[in-house]
């Protein structure tokens, strides 16, 4: 059962990469990377259970933290850089 969910998560990560490559706008790509990141957290947790290593969950938690911060960081860059180009207000 764990192997089935691990395979499902890997398939979903492949789909997220496909969406990241295809994505017409920047925000599709950021969405795909965000989806990929949260699925990586799940994959680390499931693989931690598969190999019988409970300490993988700390890695999964740290990865969730980093994923969230990076998404907000990238968004902050894209949101305001666009305004500078147009010179518009916030």
């Amino acid at each position: 059962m764990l192997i089935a969910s691990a395979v499902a998560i890997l398939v979903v990560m492949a789909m997220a990469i496909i969406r990241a490559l295809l994505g017409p706008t920047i925000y599709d790509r950021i969405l795909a990377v965000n989806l990929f990141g949260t699925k990586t957290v799940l994959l680390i947790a499931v693989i931690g259970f598969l190999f019988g290593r409970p300490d993988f969950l700390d890695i999964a938690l740290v990865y969730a933290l980093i994923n969230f911060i990076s998404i907000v960081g990238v968004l902050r860059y894209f949101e305001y850089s666009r305004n500078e180009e147009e010179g518009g207000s916030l």
Partner: protein
Amino acid sequence: MLAGMVTVLSSACLLLGAFLIISGAVGVLRFPDFFTRMHAAGVTETLATTLILLGLMLFAGWTIVSFKLLLILLFILITSPVASHALTKAALHGNLQPLVNENNEQ
């Protein structure tokens, strides 16, 4: 009896979670517009994550491991809506118009 029931329940949770993330990912691939894809991604990020982590918690039982899983679950449930909101706000700031009706292709 109870142990058997718990493992069956955890397997069911894991399977349902796996099915949901695949259906969400298909939605992310196939939907026509960014905002609809955001909805599909939201399904996988909250409900499916809850089911899979719940399945793992049942699998682990009353240990520190399932407490860590609970922390991961709480963190993801709190931060993923915030990230989705920030992403949608940035998209709207970048004047990305949602696809209102099918025939006005941007």
